[in-house]
């Protein structure tokens, strides 16, 4: 970690760029150098666009030199999850079926990053079509956790979590359908927010489950996360589900870091049994820090959360089975001829391509979703799941009458080892137990580090949930907690992560 540019916060870098103490080209080059040094072992990226990033950086430097007034994060480079379309850059969603596809259009998030003057370093790895909690389902191999290269960096956004945890980029974008921003943040000691559903445009985000997907920011500090949140969020007429209202004042809330008088609700159903001891311990300590900062703690009950996982694993596959139907070898992507058939029909080519192009987990969920929607089973499965979804939203509504925010551990355990759950889909799914309810109800959630579990020395995540369109509360609570933890630790948690360049040499 010779270059301190790569460990600095985005807020700090932005200030130094604005003061012209550093250039964006210099900063971007430092990130690219770091990638060259460590990504061979971490494997955060599916595609690095050194040339494009440096060109964008130089353009920003020139505009700044010309005296132009620029957005706050102008010149700060960013990594983009490979599920967001980027005009002229490959977008694979971690799937073989989209290998080599270069979209002819930018997602709205990417358009906003470009408008904010942020050089795009590359596209980060993910579980195929964002289906997974470990990146083991990426068709291009897993990303690794910088804290322990034999462990998962979380999923689906393990490329984005590991890219910032390994200091290859100060910021990254994520998407969160059932925890794909928050769980990777938890297991890598980073910060990530799933905004209110509709807070960030989904246009250009390759859909997994349309009614659950939400893009959001990934960073190393709460303030950095807020700064990126502000860039990504806002109404988009290209997304019918986008909320036409001002972006909540997330940056202001992160700067004020004030929780005095706030009511913090502990969700009874998401603590205790089923949570690793060290995870629970760090959670309890974090709650105490918030009490010390002036918050009041209450306990709330969300009985329907018991059914959240089941409802989620019906709604998600159902929507996914339909969303992923478009990958059929006709207009873009892979086309495979079935073996042993002369002159195959379109139908046969579709079926052969979808078998060859999709991985096991994707096929599993497509078939599960096809079943849940099929005639005769719709009411029992998809229909019931939608009713449970209403119950879960009602639980949130009731709980937010008693508390301003709700809190829980982000994930039941710290990062597990590769291979531990790959052959047991249900065990893998259980990882999302605490993050899924927010997606079902559409409310915003954040994960930030609350320390290392004593038993394994791995990061633990603390989850904060707020009512819809009250995203700023996440940042007020997150920043207050972060400040207290930082003074307790003496240094950012990530500074105690292993030196990857040494690991790189060793590997």
């Amino acid at each position, binding site marked *: 970690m010779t270059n301190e540019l790569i460990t600095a916060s985005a807020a700090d870098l932005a200030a130094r760029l604005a003061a012209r103490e550093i250039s964006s080209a210099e900063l971007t080059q430092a990130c690219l150098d770091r990638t060259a040094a460590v990504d061979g072992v971490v494997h955060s990226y599916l595609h690095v666009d050194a040339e494009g990033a440096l060109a964008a950086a130089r353009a920003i430097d020139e505009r700044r030199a010309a005296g132009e007034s620029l957005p706050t994060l102008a010149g700060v480079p960013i990594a983009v999850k490979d599920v967001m379309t980027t005009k002229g850059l490959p977008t694979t969603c971690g799937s073989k079926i989209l290998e080599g596809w*270069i*979209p*002819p*259009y930018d997602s709205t998030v990417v358009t906003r990053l470009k408008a904010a003057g942020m050089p795009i370093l590359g596209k980060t790895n993910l579980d195929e079509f964002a289906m997974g909690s470990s990146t083991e389902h990426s068709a291009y191999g897993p990303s690794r956790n910088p804290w322990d290269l034999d462990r998962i960096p979380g999923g689906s956004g393990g490329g984005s979590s590991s890219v910032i945890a390994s200091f290859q980029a100060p910021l990254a974008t994520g998407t969160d359908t059932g925890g794909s921003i928050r769980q990777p943040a938890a297991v890598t000691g980073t910060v990530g927010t799933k905004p209110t559903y509709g807070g960030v445009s989904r246009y250009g985000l390759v859909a997994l489950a349309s*009614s*659950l997907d939400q893009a959001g920011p990934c960073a190393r500090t709460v303030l950095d996360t807020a700064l990126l949140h502000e860039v990504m969020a806002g109404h988009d007429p290209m997304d*019918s*589900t986008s*909320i036409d209202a001002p972006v909540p004042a997330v940056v202001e809330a992160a700067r004020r870091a004030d929780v005095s008088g706030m009511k913090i609700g502990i969700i009874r159903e998401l603590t205790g049994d089923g949570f690793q001891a060290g995870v629970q311990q760090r959670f309890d300590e974090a709650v105490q820090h918030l009490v010390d900062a002036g918050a009041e703690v209450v306990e709330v009950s969300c009985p*329907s959360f*018991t*059914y959240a*996982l*089941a*409802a989620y*694993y*019906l709604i998600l596959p159902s929507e996914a*089975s339909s969303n992923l*139907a478009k990958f059929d*070898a*006709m*207009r*873009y*992507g*892979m*086309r495979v001829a079935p073996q042993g058939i002369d*002159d195959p*029909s*379109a*139908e*046969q*080519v*579709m*079926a*052969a391509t*979808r*078998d060859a192009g*999709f991985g096991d987990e994707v*096929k*599993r969920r*497509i*078939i*599960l979703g*096809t*079943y849940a929607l*099929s005639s005769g089973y719709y009411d*029992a*499965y998809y229909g*019931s*799941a*939608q*009713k*449970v*979804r*209403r*119950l879960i*939203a009602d639980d949130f509504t009731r709980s937010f009458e008693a508390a301003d925010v709700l809190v829980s551990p982000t994930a039941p355990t710290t990062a597990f080892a590769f291979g531990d759950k790959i052959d047991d*889909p*249900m065990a893998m799914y259980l990882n999302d137990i605490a993050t899924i309810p927010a997606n079902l109800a*559409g409310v915003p959630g954040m994960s930030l580090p609350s320390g290392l579990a004593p038993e394994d020395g791995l990061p633990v995540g603390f989850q904060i949930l707020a009512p819809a369109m009250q995203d700023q509360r996440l940042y007020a609570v997150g920043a207050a907690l972060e400040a207290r933890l930082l003074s307790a630790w003496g240094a950012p948690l990530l500074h105690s992560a292993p030196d990857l360049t040494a690991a790189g040499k060793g590997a």
Partner: protein
Amino acid sequence: MSELTRADVAHLAGLARIELSDDELDKMVGELGIILESVATVQNAPIGDVAPMSHPMPLVNVTRPDEVRPSLAAEAALSGAPEQDQQRFSVPRILDED
């Protein structure tokens, strides 16, 4: 709940246009059985007279004015096509009629 048979999975794979191999089918039948058993618990929730929820936010009537926006250039539209001919997407013969 009815058991999911191998024939059921084969039928579903057909609906989903995925040509599963025999091995894949065998594996899928077992895995899906376990998952289905777990997700079927939604039916145990107190959902009697609960209104289903399809959208997380209660938005309605989001429309756009009937004004033409620029289309993609045909070249860009066809840029990802596995095969193209005469400015059209070339696809294998279509068996079924509609």
